[in-house]
């Protein structure tokens, strides 16, 4: 795996697991999980600083050399997302952004029209845009055409743990994407992460599946191994599925 780096916008990553920081009950558990995942890139949100608030999560990331990827979580319109991205660039000194433009609180599904609009504006403004998108091959292609550095289709809605509900769509996105595909959202357990990689995704982004597990560091380890196993299986080339049995021992 060491000679199989993930390359995003010309930058190499040894890890194909992006572990988000959302949902962890405390910083100590989050830190253990990040280390067990061996993640090199992790998402953070941008929020109001209240009096006395500390940027504890940034200290943890700095300590371990993990790159923060700010997101635009909570934004409902292109204008809001673009402003949040510009603020995150100012706060963190990075032009990378995980672009999220959410349609409503119940589904947390991306609003495709606002998403594409925001992506175009941010690419124009020099951002490296990593858009969280629906599992729609047409929208994924439009985002890549707009200059996004990757496309990040959901497996199922954020935080549901329902896994990959439409594997065929993910395969179609992979088949025609000129940029890396990162499966983002919906992962519930290790087999979901392995499936994402087997379907041809270049990486997996997850948070709740680890941070809300009973034992987050152990689940982080499971996800790391699953992503590696799925990547190996993809590159190894699986056998075709058959209807009838085929003996693996010689005829008697």
């Amino acid at each position: 795996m060491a000679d199989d780096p993930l390359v995003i916008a010309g930058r190499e990553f040894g890890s194909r697991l992006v572990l988000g920081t959302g949902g962890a009950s405390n910083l100590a558990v989050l830190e253990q999980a990040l280390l067990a995942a061996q993640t090199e890139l992790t998402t953070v949100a941008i929020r109001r600083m209240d009096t006395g608030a500390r940027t504890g999560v940034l200290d943890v990331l700095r300590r371990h050399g993990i790159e923060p990827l700010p997101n635009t979580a909570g934004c409902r319109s292109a204008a809001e997302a673009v402003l949040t991205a510009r603020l995150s660039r100012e706060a963190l000194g990075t032009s990378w952004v995980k672009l999220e433009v959410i349609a409503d609180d119940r589904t947390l599904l991306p609003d495709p029209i606002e998403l594409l609009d925001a992506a175009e504006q941010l690419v124009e403004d020099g951002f490296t845009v990593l858009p969280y998108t629906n599992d729609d091959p047409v929208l994924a292609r439009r985002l890549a055409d707009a200059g996004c550095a990757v496309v990040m289709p959901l497996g199922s809605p954020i935080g549901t743990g329902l896994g990959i509900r439409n594997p065929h769509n993910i395969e179609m996105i992979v088949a025609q994407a000129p940029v890396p595909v990162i499966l983002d959202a919906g992962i519930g357990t290790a087999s979901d992460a392995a499936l994402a990689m087997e379907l041809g995704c270049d990486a997996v982004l997850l948070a709740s599946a680890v941070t809300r597990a009973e034992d987050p560091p152990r689940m982080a380890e499971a996800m790391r191994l699953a992503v590696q196993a799925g990547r190996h299986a993809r590159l190894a080339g699986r056998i075709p599925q058959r209807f009838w049995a085929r003996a693996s021992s010689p005829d008697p």
Partner: protein
Amino acid sequence: MTVIVNGHSWELPHGATLADVLERLGAPSCGVAVALDGAVVPRASWPGTALWEGASVEVLTAVQGG
């Protein structure tokens, strides 16, 4: 004058700047961004940006999320 900082009303003397707001908030020296009436103000401009009656200041930082 009254200025809105992260949704709260603050009484500030005339001539107060963004840098004064950040100092009173106890903002750390990095990892913070400021929007004034919906536009990003770069850190270098904070000391020279005087506020006005009714100005809306948002001070943001990175937190766990995503």
